[in-house]
């Protein structure tokens, strides 16, 4: 899960331990969907993929190297497996792209073969990426097959993780992100780092 420093700090210091899904934020009055144009579109796209549970879903990306989609935020949060393994599934790609590529609209069934349980994530990855796997590849190379290297770009391809229910901050295993240049952001980062360590998470500073 990638977050900006502001959102990460908010999650770690907020009065609620849980990271709420977008829809729960709306229901618990933290966000106002009418404030912007895309929220209704978002609802439509997510409802097409998970018609009965979309309001409960939090989104993450499958990664082998712990650094996620920096396009969504510079700080990559790795969640401990035990906190999500019984309630997560994996999906071919970002629902917006998927809907576009498969001409899927709300109400139409999602075609089979693009989703797997957490335990079967390797099967989905193989089905999707087998053509990119070459004999000479090392473990490091696999990371870039699973999630492309263009992680700060919006169209970078990855396998999405759908986590049913709220994500507790105690489930954070590791955070990787840069040490900010600005003094005030450094102060916020240092405070977040202390809190994360108190929670039992590792914090790594990336280049």
């Amino acid at each position, binding site marked *: 899960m990638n977050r900006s420093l*502001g*959102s990460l700090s908010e999650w770690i210091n907020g009065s609620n331990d849980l990271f709420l899904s977008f829809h729960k934020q709306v229901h618990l009055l933290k966000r106002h969907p009418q404030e912007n144009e895309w929220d209704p579109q978002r609802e439509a796209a997510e409802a097409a993929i998970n018609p009965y549970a979309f309001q409960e879903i939090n989104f993450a990306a499958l990664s082998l190297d712990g650094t996620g989609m920096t396009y969504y935020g510079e700080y990559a949060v790795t969640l401990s497996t035990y906190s999500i393994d019984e309630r997560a599934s994996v999906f071919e790609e970002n629902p917006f792209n998927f809907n576009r590529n498969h001409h899927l609209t709300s109400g139409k069934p999602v075609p089979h073969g693009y989703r797997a349980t957490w335990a079967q994530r390797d099967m989905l990855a193989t089905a999707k990426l087998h053509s990119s796997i070459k004999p000479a590849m090392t473990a490091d190379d696999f990371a870039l097959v699973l999630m492309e290297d263009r992680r700060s770009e*919006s169209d970078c391809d990855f396998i999405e993780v759908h986590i049913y229910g709220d994500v507790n901050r105690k489930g954070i295993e590791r955070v990787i992100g840069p040490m900010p240049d600005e003094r005030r*952001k450094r102060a*916020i980062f240092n405070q977040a780092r202390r809190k994360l360590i108190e929670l039992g998470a590792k914090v790594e500073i990336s280049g």
Partner: protein
Amino acid sequence: MKAIISGQAGVALLPDRPARLIRIGQPEITLRDIQEAVRCFDGADDAKRHQLSDLSDVRIQLAHEDAFSDALKLLLFFLDPSESEEDVTEYAECIEEVIQTPEVFLMLERRMYSSPLPFPIEVNHLTRATKNAPSVIKFVCDIISHQAAISRICKSFEELSPSLFESGLQKERARQHLSDWGAFLLLSKAVAKNQDLSFLRLQISAKFGYWKEAIALWTAKIRPGVADRSAKADFHPAMMETDDEDTPFVTPHLPSHVAYQQVRAQQVAIVQRLKDRDVDGARRFTDELIQRQRNNSTAEQIAKSLSYLATQAKRQEVPELQVEWAAWAERENPEDPLTSGHLADAFITVGNYGEAEQALDRTASFGNQVYAATGRGRILRALGRYEEARASFLETTKDYEDQDGVEYAHAGAAETLRDQGRYIDALEEYKNLTDRWPFEETFWNGYASTLVDLGRFQEALVTFGKAGAKSPVTKNGKASVYRQGGKFLEAAALYDEVIEEFPNNHVALTGRAEVLRLNGALEDAAVAYRVAVERCPFIPYPILGLGNTLSEMRNFAESVRVLKNGVEQFPDTPSLQIGLAKSLRRSGDTAEALRITDICLRRFPADTQAWILKSTLLNECGQNDEAIAILKRTLSEHPYSFAASTKLAALLIECGDIAGARALLPEIEPRSSWDWTRFILRAEIEVLEHGAGKASRMFERGVSQCPFHRQRVLLRSAWASAELGRRRWREARRLVDAAPLEIEPIVRLSVYAATHRPGLARIALQEVMDTNHVAVVVNLADEIAKRHGLRSGKPVHDFDWIIRTQRTAILLEAA
């Protein structure tokens, strides 16, 4: 340019195609689809939509939002008692840097005043850590000192029912908007200072009209009504300053500087008591002062002191003391024309014209002929004898052409032209006067006021600017321009400035109340008018305003009682008699209204308003020809009378003379309330000539743009009625449901009955019967009730009759 910005996420999205994403310090990214930006905002709860002028503004706003988000976090860490002193110091210094940007400081201030602090703060601990952050500790101390007010305001908001906002979600949304705009901050500061909240309430309601009802309830719970001046802090003369260094008080037995200081303090103390309308206190202080002076001063010096104090009483509008001290001054020095002149002025102010005449005679006999002659003109003018008044003023200007003080006779002559409705002549005369006396503020103010009479608001504002001085007259004049142009916030701000300096200024007090009335805050307006009545007991206009407001609130019994008392107290003021007759008419007592109007016309045969009312009453009695004749005659004598021409146009529409009505309704961009009334009439003509479909565009524009509450209500009512006439039931219902309080009860009844909502229709019917006693409306309600089975009996008219009569009732009400 539209932008959605989140400080927490550090992202700005420009949603217009092609959508673009902006991050601080990075080039913008063009997106294939807006959905590519969606998750950049995940986890951030501060995304807001902004309307900005260009890309650089977007970047600036993003930087501010980002800095604010950081500052808010750092401030909460700073206040957290579990943080170490070293970290607290770091946080303080970071915040100190950020809040040097005023926009960020304001955002932080607004947020911190929107909810009470969650835990007690150890200020000493913080002070140690903030050696290099003085602004931060000051800010925190300010927040702590305002906690009681913040808690009170937040608690009041919490107690509001979510149904006032439609839902809990909407209530939270309202809270966030109010917080971002600074409503919590402004209210907390005002409550902490025990300031009047009505202007703030007006500001907030104007900004968030959608939640007007909830805001009214919220602010009323905090502290209702207008501030009580007696609640002010103790007065310390030494802290005060007056604007007049030229004091006449002399106590020669003391060393000069000590004497000066003592007199100055005493003078300030008296003026302060005048401001507080503490008549007994001002009287006691003056008695003491004169007593001390009597040991060492001549009668002439004592009279000068008293005349000076009488002038101060006039400035602060405490006429009973003006009369008392002016009379005392004359007794001390009876042969000085100045003392009798001041006394005459005081008598004119309180309407005691007989005594004023006698005092003017004495002024003339002791040598000040100009003053006496001008004073006589003023009395004639006050009595409504405008022809004689003008002749008197003109004679004075001719007889004493080169003498000092003759300019006031010139001003009187020009003002009388305004009284007569001869605005173009008045304008010409003022033009000549400003050419001759370019530094005389009175003439510029008169010139500007005449431009206001003619509806030339922009020129009036410029001309008030030329008056230069920031006198209450100029400020009130400007405020009146804003008020009449529907710019209520600007008007209220200026009135408040005047009231701050002159708390009994009747023009500002009534103007401010009128602003509230025009904005639809009738309860607040009534409270403000009652304050004006209390503070200006010798002025009739606050009573008139109060009576009119009560009538608009449909509290006719109280309105009639207030106005009757007013007429008894001010028998020479025709507007009070007209106000009383209007209130009687609205209460259904047409015969009594006609009787009072006739009495008024016998006494004041030149009064335009009385003739217009007479025509309204005749129209209601079915004598339309006579009513039209009266209005045509009035209009020939007063061609610039908006009231007469508008009323005549309404009558002509009713009688089917559309061409005649159209000629009286110029197609100008509406600004004043009269312009909007004419706009309503023009829309009605559109309905008659081209059908309701075309007119609905006009109605829609009017409802969304008209700043005047009453006209807006009539526009919405006329629109709903027109939709009913087209049998567009859902549209009519939508208009009523969108703002049920902004629609005439008779139209609400009609719409609810026609759209099968019997319960709501019965409530509306009861409201009509309880609050409207005009015959045409009562008959109409009865007919609608019978037609839809709300009452027993057979209807005698068809549906088209109902719509026609409804529209006639709206026309009558509008004009």
